[in-house]
């Protein structure tokens, strides 16, 4: 079974790439590929121009230092039996950074960055709240001053009010350090808010890619449109006569990939060519937006613009 197939993605320096898609479409797998936690069957992983596909163990270590990760469930992703102090020093130990007596101060400094300067670092993770832990996880990823952070659903497990905290924190970090992000989420709002560019995945492939504005305001792939339209928002409440594009059917099974366009069985525009020919990811004329749809942009542009408008809703006062 192929969880992810034929995907090419690039994250630029200081840029945030957002990756969205339905559950099981291969987002996490892609993240794990990027982090080299699973081996690629075919293809290349390049970091700063260097091919790191075949690197393992010690040879991968220098790369890892510049490439860090944040995961979904902060409690689960911290070792429950290590104190926060131990958790925090692990990156330094692992990469042979000897700070000696300065270690504690450095940890404090890092923690203060996320507003946790007053916590007792001898406590175990179980004694902190989810929001605190996610901040610890983020600051731990920052400890070695990486160039890119891969964050797999960093806010999904958190309460709405906490989600906003984390989003703010990540934005703040990027502003201060010029770090790159690969952020994965199924929450379109979050992605739309933080990302410079967005890639939309469906069943293991990228079906649309472009700047955040492009994707959020003028999605060209019918799937992206449905996705955006489906997510209930406050905006919907304010609009009279709003109608969402409903997808029929269920998310497909990655073990049984449809022929032609992978989305065709659920697509209301689908026609013969969609059933037989795999649509390539094509650049749309005049923009950097890439769409894998036979019918884009001619037959999808209008619906896209509507969806984008509906979603923004009425502009807020001020």
């Amino acid at each position: 079974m192929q969880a992810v197939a034929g995907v090419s993605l690039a994250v630029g320096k200081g840029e945030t790439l957002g990756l969205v898609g339905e559950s099981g479409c291969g987002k996490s797998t892609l993240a794990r590929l990027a982090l080299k936690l699973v081996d690629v069957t075919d293809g290349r992983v390049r970091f700063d121009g260097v091919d790191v596909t075949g690197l393992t163990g010690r040879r991968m270590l220098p790369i890892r230092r510049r490439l860090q990760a944040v995961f979904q469930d902060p409690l689960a992703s911290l070792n429950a039996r290590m104190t926060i102090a131990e958790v925090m020093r692990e990156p330094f130990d692992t990469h042979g950074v000897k700070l000696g007596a300065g270690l504690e101060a450095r940890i404090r400094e890092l923690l203060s960055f996320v507003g946790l300067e007053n916590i007792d670092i001898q406590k175990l993770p179980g004694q902190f709240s989810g929001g605190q832990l996610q901040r610890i996880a983020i600051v731990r990823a920052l400890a070695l001053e990486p160039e890119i952070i891969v964050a797999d659903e960093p806010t999904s497990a958190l309460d709405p009010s906490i989600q906003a905290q984390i989003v703010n924190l990540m934005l703040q970090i990027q502003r201060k350090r010029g770090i790159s992000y690969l952020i994965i989420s199924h929450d379109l709002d979050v992605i739309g808010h933080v990302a410079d560019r967005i890639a939309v995945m469906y069943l293991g492939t990228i079906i649309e890619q472009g700047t955040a504005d492009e994707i959020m305001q003028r999605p060209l792939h019918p799937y992206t449109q449905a996705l955006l339209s489906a997510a209930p928002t406050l905006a919907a409440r304010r609009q009279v006569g709003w109608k969402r594009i409903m997808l029929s059917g269920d998310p497909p099974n990655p073990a049984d990939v449809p022929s032609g366009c992978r989305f065709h069985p659920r697509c209301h525009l689908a026609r013969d060519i969609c059933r037989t020919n795999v649509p390539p990811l094509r650049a749309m004329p005049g923009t950097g937006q890439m769409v894998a749809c036979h019918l884009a942009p001619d037959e999808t542009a209008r619906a896209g613009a509507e969806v984008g408008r509906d979603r923004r809703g009425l502009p807020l006062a001020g």
Partner: protein
Amino acid sequence: MILSVRDFAIGFQREGQNLVAVDGISFDVEAGETFVIIGESGSGKSLTGMSIAGLQPPTAFVSGSIRFKDREMLNRPDAELRKLRGPEIGLIYQDPLSSLNPVWPVGDQIAETLTAHGLADRAEANKRAVEMLERVRIPDPRRVASAYPHEISGGMRQRAMIAMALAANPSLLIADEPTTALDVTIKAQILELLADLKRELALTIILITHDMGVVAEVADRILVLYAGRIAEIGPADSIMLQPSHPYTAALMTSAMISQTPAKQELNAIVGGAPGLGAFPAGCRFHPRCPRAQDDCNTVEPPRRKFGAVELACHHPIEVAMSLQVARS
């Protein structure tokens, strides 16, 4: 009025200490409305919802009164409560996969709601199960009825759950985060389905969620819980569009990311929700509240009417400025 909750409290004993999770809340639910309970994790939403159906944890102690169709539900013997669950009150939950018995076909589980209450014999119940599946818009109800839960998709499962809850024609449906585990596209389907069913069957729905998008879409009235207390209660439009309680206002932010210019700081509440047994004195929200003043630290705000809503806050946001407040 189908349901009336008065001074309802529920708590637990832990190491000899009484920990009150929900502390004296009162509200009414009118027949035919969609009543939504929102609040952060641990605020007591599920405990309240479950207690309405008499399903509070066996270790909990309760006080107050919950009257459903003029019948007291608290301290009613389980045998009598059981008669109500199914024919009077239907329940659906998050995570339909685990909520269905993995070893029985879906149809049998739906039919059981009827047979267990003696409402139909087996054959009839099976027939009705298929009908119910059809009613929840399952395309091939006969096949799904004989399928095991793991053999159908997540959306189908949640539909089957709904079919099961509604099989015996209850008038009240309590839905505890029915869409949380679902994908966006499926979530939309389920929400539309619930809205349709409500209309078709004249249901009253109590929906528990912390997804503001969902709330925005379906709520008639909203109850905002914070740390086991009512923060605000009132018509959905007022609460969503003109939140008066600082907590509600902050909560709405998450539903407004798309309205916030990209990369701009969101209006976040500082800190995290207090855990059970660690509720602050005075207004329970005061440590996180941007508007908190001295009285908030000590005096518990009484519940009072404020415009279209009722709330418990010493310094509510004036209606006219509420949205700006929420944004800044």
